């Protein structure tokens, strides 16, 4: 009897797209909104934390330690617990406890803490000599952060952004458990609670494909923003053409 009930509960294959694609769209909207907030807050915050540290452009150990602690607390809570613990705050901001709006708040908080660390780490890998050059060239602190620090770290930040987006897709699935909608919600309600293996398998495939696509686009952007990778991979080759064989034989010719 149980078996018949479960069999009846299964979603027929021809109804799968109608169930999954709106869910995927929800996930993408959720992650998109969250990532916009994360980048808008995380980049300046990461640059701030990096430059408050000893040797930074506005060194301030006390403020650096405080900010760093707050970020570490945000990073240390498992997402499910963070989400549950800030529910009153979420309701205060969005007026609701369920749905995409409610999921965006905890996801953004977790994402900002994550991304701030990624930006900070990327900026740390920019050689300090470059900042000295920018200072000696008469740059203001904001100019230096923009042109010497962030600009030089762009490929590394994009690499980190890729990791962050994938983490957010994962978080959106967890947020699905509080009725946020999206692929995660479908996987939990159909695949897990109703034992619908077909839906479960379909959501897994969709998630794998989405994550792979994000990674692929991220890698391509990293290559595009790193001159020596872009020009060596042969994707863009104006320089190769400009350098006739004769020119490349000249002493000190570019190592293309």
């Amino acid at each position, binding site marked *: 009897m149980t078996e018949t009930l479960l069999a009846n509960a299964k979603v027929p294959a021809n109804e799968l797209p109608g169930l999954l694609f709106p869910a995927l769209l929800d996930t993408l909207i959720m992650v998109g909104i969250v990532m916009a907030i994360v980048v808008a807050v995380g980049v300046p915050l990461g640059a701030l934390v990096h430059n408050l540290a000893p040797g930074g452009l506005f060194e301030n150990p006390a403020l650096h330690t405080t900010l760093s602690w707050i970020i570490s607390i945000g990073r240390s809570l498992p997402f499910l617990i963070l989400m549950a613990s800030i529910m009153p705050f979420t309701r205060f901001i969005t007026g609701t406890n369920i749905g995409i709006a409610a999921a965006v708040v905890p996801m953004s908080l977790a994402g900002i803490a994550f991304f701030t660390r990624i930006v900070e780490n990327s900026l740390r890998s920019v050689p300090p000599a*470059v900042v*000295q050059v920018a*200072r000696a060239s*008469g*740059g203001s602190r904001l100019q230096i952060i923009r042109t010497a620090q962030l600009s030089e770290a762009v490929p590394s930040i994009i690499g980190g952004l890729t990791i962050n987006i994938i983490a957010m897709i994962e978080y959106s699935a967890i947020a699905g458990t509080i009725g946020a909608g999206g692929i995660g919600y479908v996987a939990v309600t159909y695949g897990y609670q109703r034992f619908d293996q077909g839906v479960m398998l379909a959501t897994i495939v969709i998630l794998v494909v989405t994550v792979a696509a994000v990674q692929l686009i991220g890698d391509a952007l990293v290559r595009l923003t790193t001159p020596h990778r872009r*020009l060596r991979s042969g994707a863009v080759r104006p320089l190769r053409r400009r350098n006739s064989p004769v020119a490349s034989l000249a002493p000190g010719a570019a*190592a293309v």
Partner: protein
Amino acid sequence: MGHDRSAGQVFDQPGVNPPDPELVVIAKVFPRNPFWEHSPVIELTNLTKAYGHGDQRTVVLDKVTFSVDAGEILAVVGPSGAGKSTLAQCINLLTPPTSGSVVVNGEDLTTLSARKLRVARRRIGTVFQSAGLLERRTAAENVALPLEYLGVTAAEARKRVAELLDRVGLAQHAGHYPFQLSGGQRQRVGIARALALRPSVLLSDEATAGLDPTTTDSVVDLLRELRDDLNLSIVFITHEMDTVLKIADSVARLDHGSIAESGRLVDLLTDPDSSLGSELRPQRVDAEPAAGQQIWRVVYDAPDVPADWVGRASQDLGIPLSVLGASVQLVAGVSVGGFTLGIPAQLGDRVRDVLGRYGLAASTDESDSLAVELNSELEGVA
């Protein structure tokens, strides 16, 4: 911003003016003209930098004082850990000194507020070790960096960048990224960037470190040319003694944070008592003297040593001089260097007198040790 600025307004700020062409001509025709000798463009007075407090206080720079005139190249040499990098950072005020002053074009930079300092710093162009280029910008975009910070319009910046790249011989490489340039080319981009705002002082912090000898020579030649054309004052910080011979007018040796010895390069090289002079003279391995010969070390002591002195001195002494080792070269139009001679021991002090006539300072190893003893006795008396 800055769209209504004309080229003249941007560059004709006090202190960053291009030198008066007429004066440049005068300086070239009369390089030892007193007018130039006594117009320091950059002056360091008692510059001191210390880290920490109390027992942990370490003095990295101790009352460093020197000045560089318009069109002069001063080389600051010293071993690693002597404080050369700190000195460079204090000169362009990237690190504030603990005390002392850095005066450029008559203005004391150490008293300026952070905002004014940022403007004043434009009078000093800095060339860094291994160039320090932004890897995601082309050569042209790297040179444009200081212009961009200043707010120069794009069209104007493009014009100036083309000029600068052409000046350093990289017009063909404007669109190349740093990874496509050789070490020497990267450094040329660094030099062009340092000159973008028409500074009156160029600070070179180990700019030739890590370059091969040929590339070092080409960078040195470029710096000397730029000095001549733009009447730049150059502070050239390096640990390479042979590069100093090629570039410097004056030399100062930094040791344990203070200037141990300084002077005009030619004077130091022709001074047999100068330890910096002997460090600057090429080091060589001499042959062994024949039996009965005494080793004499001879240093060019005057600007007018005749080129044929070996033959003439042999005649005067009545014996042929054996040359065991020699290194002589032209520095700033003056022959400098030293010889190691093997001379029969019985000639004694006559050798010193005869060689002295030709402007040479001669000493034996024994007379050296004698002088040392005499000195220590004198010190004991004092």
